[in-house]
């Protein structure tokens, strides 16, 4: 940050020693390798190893056991046949798509509204911004229980408001009803997702050069025209990146669903992420879960490759 203090420290601490310098240079190539090793081992190594193990497991006949027992079990493609012919797999995939799209588009819209508002001059803007970001600081499980209480059938304030407003008198069991459960688990996810979009889009709005607006005004642009022809195009990379990252996050979401419905009722909220978990740790079908995992991995990889191909301007890479 402050240049002067750094130079002072430099002079004060470092003592020149030519022999040490030469030695350091000889071993210089080792340094980046050494620095990278822990991160590569734990960040990439573990994940890579897990994927290999997952593939190895998915090709076995035995369903459950120790690593040794599983790896000694005969090879078979049966798990994949089961996964692909099981209608529940495709239903899960569909639920994942609905959940992902819903919990990306809705918080994006709310976040955009917040960002546009916060980009205006207003009293207490910093405080309001901090308050609007509060859902970010609420753990997923905690957000889930808060909404489970609000949407509780008998004493929940949501049903109470519906009664007061005369919309519905029924004690809707939001999380327990097959028809409403998916919407119910989406609501806390949406709530918690808003701050991410708010921050990304606000950063985008603040990076727009004010001169563009002035130029548009000179050309006689009104509020809408300025929004349509200056804000949106300038914001486009931020919109793209935030939607992609948000969707990725939603797709892998586990906490909200597991803590509230566990995938039920009758699989109505069982996204792929939850289904893999349930197969492995509820039904103890390790190799079947592994096969579904590999299947998901392939699907996800295809989508990512397509996205990166489409991203000709390098917006995604710019964020990496």
């Amino acid at each position: 940050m402050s240049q002067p203090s750094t130079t002072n420290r430099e002079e004060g601490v470092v003592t020149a020693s030519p022999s040490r310098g030469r030695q350091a240079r000889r071993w210089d190539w080792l340094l980046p390798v050494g620095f990278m090793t822990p991160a590569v081992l734990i960040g990439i190594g573990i994940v890579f190893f897990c994927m290999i193990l997952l593939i190895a497991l998915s090709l076995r006949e035995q369903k459950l056991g120790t690593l040794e027992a599983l790896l000694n079990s005969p090879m078979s493609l049966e798990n994949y046949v089961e996964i692909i012919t099981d209608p529940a797999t495709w239903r899960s995939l569909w639920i994942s798509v609905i959940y992902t799209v819903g919990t990306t588009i809705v918080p994006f819209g709310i976040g955009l509204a917040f960002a546009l508002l916060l980009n205006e001059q207003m009293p207490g803007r910093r405080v309001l911004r901090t308050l609007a970001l509060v859902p970010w600081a609420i753990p997923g499980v905690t957000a889930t229980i808060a909404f489970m209480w609000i949407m509780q059938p008998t004493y929940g304030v949501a049903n109470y408001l519906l009664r007061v407003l005369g919309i519905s008198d029924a004690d809707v069991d939001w999380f327990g009803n097959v028809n409403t459960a998916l919407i119910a688990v989406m609501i806390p996810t949406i709530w918690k997702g808003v701050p991410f979009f708010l921050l990304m889009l606000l950063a985008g709005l603040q990076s727009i050069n004010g001169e563009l607006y002035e130029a548009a005004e000179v050309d006689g642009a009104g509020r809408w025209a300025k929004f349509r022809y200056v804000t949106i195009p300038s914001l486009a990379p931020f919109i793209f990146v935030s939607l992609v990252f948000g969707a990725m996050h939603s797709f892998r979401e586990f906490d909200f669903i597991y803590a509230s419905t566990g995938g039920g009722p009758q699989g109505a909220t069982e996204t792929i992420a939850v289904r893999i978990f349930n197969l492995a740790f509820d039904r103890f079908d390790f190799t079947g879960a592994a096969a579904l995992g590999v299947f998901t991995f392939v699907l996800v990889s295809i989508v990512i490759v397509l996205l990166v191909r489409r991203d000709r301007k390098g917006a995604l890479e710019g964020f990496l």
Partner: protein
Amino acid sequence: MTTTLTETLVVPATKKARRARRPRVNLPFAIMIVMTVIMLFPVYWMLLTALLPTQAVFSRSPSLIPTGEMSFDSFVGLLVKTPIFSWIFQSIIITIGTSVLSAFICLLAAYALSRFVVPGRKLTAVGFLVGRVLPGTLLALPLFILFQTVGLLNTQLAVILANVAVVTPLTTLILKGYFDGIPRDIDDAAMVDGCSRWGVLWRMIFPLSVPGLVACVGLSATAAWTDLLFSRTLLLSRDNWTLPMGITSIIGAHEVDWNELMAAGLISIIPMLIIYWFLQPHLVSGMTAGGVKG
């Protein structure tokens, strides 16, 4: 502020009339207030439920503004009925372990990525994206088997390693973006003076990058504190349960005691608010690390 030149020249009368009709009402401000109140309602409701007596909580027509007296009974009940201190303690161990280990690892890796030529940037980008989008549940199964084989199952270390593996790619890239902003001249000057690479990192870069590190520690601490998946799969015995696990177990109970549940929820928020306080100035730079090229 944003009225156009033409408007001022052509229609001054209407503008004056409009201003007279609604004196100094800041519409964005008003909408913002309403939206913020709605956003904060769940937290407010949680607080209210935890503090109100049971009969007020279990009411068919709850009052949105508290009228009766408040108490900390639900916190006391939570203490008596659940091993909440043990849950908190376990969560703290895992959170500290994860953030310290991840900070150390990503500091080294980010420096290497920032100062040396590392090939395969596009490939790294794709790998990172795939890693970010893969459901954690996909990793939970092989991790379970891996830790079972090496005998780490049911230890905090297993959960710490799993969290670090998930969070490190992200924190490394954020910190790399931060290091890129520190001029290389500093490294060169120090090395001319005989400082080793390690010395450069430790004496020059580290003090300068404290804000970036704070962001990384905040993010990894957040991931560890809120983690449910890995503590659910890798910690088997009840004694090792973390706070999110404990809260989930209360929901699973036969009759849910909502005020105690909300009290537990509030406890889980407190450390997050502390992290959030330190992290807030860095959230934007953290999320937009590297900036946009497009």
